[in-house]
């Protein structure tokens, strides 16, 4: 569905380094990373809003460098909650917006408005944060997008609104025809619905596989301080030491029977946190 090959973008103090990944059709992919890891820059580069220095983006078989406009008519993207023309009625702005999309499905749009309890006569500034996100999602879906790219759609939403939105995502991919890529730093959202995880740190791709694989190939271990031997230190991904104990993240394959540790299933947050404590950093 979406293929990113060797994406590079250099800024003075930051760069995206050779990021490559592929998004299969019909799944939800979560894009995680700390603030400033390059999530937004990567997404904007994919959309050619930021011009990559090098790399190739292919969406549904079309090259972004060649068919940018055709591609953009067929995908939906939202880089933040809808808050442009906030003082205008939704109907007015959308009336202009929809002219740009030849595949616009007015009936679907009306259905989404109903489903999300959005009223076209309201002004965008009168909507709650969650509603603004839902409006963006409604717009993306009504243009019959086969791929949805969303930057931090759940940040700023309360747990109820987040849960509703995640349910919308699950519904979108249920038919197997549409894919969702969304970035977030709220990793628990992904545990509930993502199929694949892309994790970047400091502009570099760290992990890119099925969520279940990632969760099962890592262990969170903890133990007494003296259990953190030199050998163990070399095998863990990252660790935290206190005066009384230590905790660390380790690849399941790298643990040995001699390690005197308590093993737990990590969550994505642990994985993100400990990868950011990696020894080489």
């Amino acid at each position: 569905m979406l293929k990113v090959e060797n994406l590079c973008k250099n800024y003075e103090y930051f760069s995206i380094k050779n990021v490559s990944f592929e998004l299969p059709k019909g799944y939800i992919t979560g894009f995680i990373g700390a603030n400033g890891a390059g999530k937004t820059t990567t997404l904007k580069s994919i959309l050619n809003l930021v011009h990559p220095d090098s790399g190739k983006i292919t969406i549904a078989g079309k090259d972004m460098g060649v068919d940018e406009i055709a591609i953009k008519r067929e995908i939906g993207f939202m880089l933040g909650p809808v808050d442009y023309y906030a003082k205008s009625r939704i109907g007015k702005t959308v009336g202009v917006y929809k002219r740009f999309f030849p595949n616009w499905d007015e009936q679907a749009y009306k259905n989404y408005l109903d489903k999300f309890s959005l009223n076209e006569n309201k002004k965008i500034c009168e909507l709650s944060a969650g509603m603004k996100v839902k409006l963006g999602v409604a717009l993306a879906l009504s243009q019959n997008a086969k791929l949805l790219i969303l930057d931090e759609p759940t940040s700023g939403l309360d747990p109820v609104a987040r849960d509703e939105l995640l349910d919308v995502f699950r519904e979108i991919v249920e038919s197997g025809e549409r894919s969702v890529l969304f970035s977030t730093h709220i990793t628990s959202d992904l545990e509930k619905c993502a199929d694949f995880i892309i994790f970047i740190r400091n502009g570099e791709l760290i992990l890119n596989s099925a969520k279940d694989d990632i969760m099962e190939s890592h262990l969170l271990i903890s133990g007494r301080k003296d259990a953190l031997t030199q050998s163990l230190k070399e095998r863990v991904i990252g660790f935290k030491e206190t005066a009384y104990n230590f905790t660390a993240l380790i690849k399941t394959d790298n643990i040995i029977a001699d390690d005197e540790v308590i093993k737990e299933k990590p969550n994505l947050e642990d994985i993100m946190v400990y990868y950011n404590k990696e020894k080489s950093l």
Partner: protein
Amino acid sequence: MDIVISSKSDKPISLQLYEQISSQIAVGDLYPGYSLPSVRSLARELGIGIVTVQRAYEMLEAEQFIYSKQGKGSFVCQFDNKELDETKKRLAAKKLKENIPYYKNLGISLEQLTQLLKREY
């Protein structure tokens, strides 16, 4: 079909799914020919990943609890009584095996464990 998922459990969700469906098949709650929900609709209903459900179905298929027909979905396999018996034993053995290291760690001998099992069963 009843499925109860715990996201807090240390057991991977795909394994939880596998265990629950396989045991329901073994006891006959899910009868031969029963049409399982599609991977995608089950994922949506349970609020879990599609890949997670796919993995569980793959395990079930590998262990011949279910079979899938292209474009039609997944169905519970036919068993005769003998096979069903074997399956139940297999499941039970698997579960027991999981806990053996724990008993060994406690220093419980096989005899002690057998006695305990008799008493507790």
